């Protein structure tokens, strides 16, 4: 699955296939020893929705990280172990960028009413709906953000 650079040893530093996010969460669901929860926002959340629908189309303008939020120490510890420059990043080519609770303020205030949930072993994952994930991106409006919206439209995660 993981693409390799020319040396065929170091994974490309990017996250673009929906299945990468699913594999990561399945793995952490096995690792976690106590119940914990994370909320996934940003392009990692879009990739998660795509994975749930069996979409294989890669995200344009690849990502280098995922942005989870957690209030549980065991999950936070796993996230720290996978931060930038970690063995996790060396193995996967992307890293975990822990976001604070304040990052949720960028979403529409009623996002919890549309959230999706899935259990991976002891790990409970919540992901705001695609349109809510895109809201802060559209506010920012950078080329990459607009490309992610186009991708979400193209893959059917959102409709016009």
């Amino acid at each position, binding site marked *: 699955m993981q693409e390799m650079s020319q040396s065929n040893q170091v994974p490309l530093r990017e996250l673009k296939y929906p299945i990468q996010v699913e594999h990561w969460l399945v793995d952490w669901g096995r690792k976690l020893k106590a119940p914990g929860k994370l909320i996934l926002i940003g392009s990692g959340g879009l990739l998660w929705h795509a994975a749930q629908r069996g979409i294989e189309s890669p995200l344009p303008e690849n990502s280098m990280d995922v942005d989870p939020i957690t209030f549980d*120490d065991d999950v936070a510890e796993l996230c*720290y*172990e996978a931060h930038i420059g970690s063995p996790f990043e060396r193995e996967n080519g992307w890293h975990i960028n822990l*976001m*604070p609770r304040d990052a949720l303020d960028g979403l529409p205030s009623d996002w919890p009413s549309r959230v999706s949930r899935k259990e991976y072993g002891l790990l409970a994952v919540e992901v705001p709906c695609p349109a809510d994930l895109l809201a802060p991106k559209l506010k920012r409006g950078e080329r990459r953000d607009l490309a992610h919206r186009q991708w979400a439209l193209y893959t059917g995660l959102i409709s016009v």
Partner: protein
Amino acid sequence: MNALSLDDAARLQYSRILWKNPRTRRRLLYVWEHPEHPHRERFEENRELVVGFLECENPQTYIDSVAGAKWSLRTLTREIPCVIWEFWDESKEASLERKEEVRPLQNAATIIR
């Protein structure tokens, strides 16, 4: 919390979460006290203040009541050393745990004496 950038808010939130659990607190301290940690000395200088900040109920109230004019929420948050997990030595976990278990016993022995 509103005065903090997302990076600072994340540092404060997750340092406080990890500090609450005795096991992850040991791990934090091991990393922060590591001889190669670039902010080890600075942490030692402000250790009491930083530990109070991590343990307090409300960080802003703590700043207002304890830290005085010298510190703001942002500047004290930046005194929390960054977590360089690569310094962590998994094999030390058991011995650090034992040390912590012995400490209260030693304190009790002192009181009895």
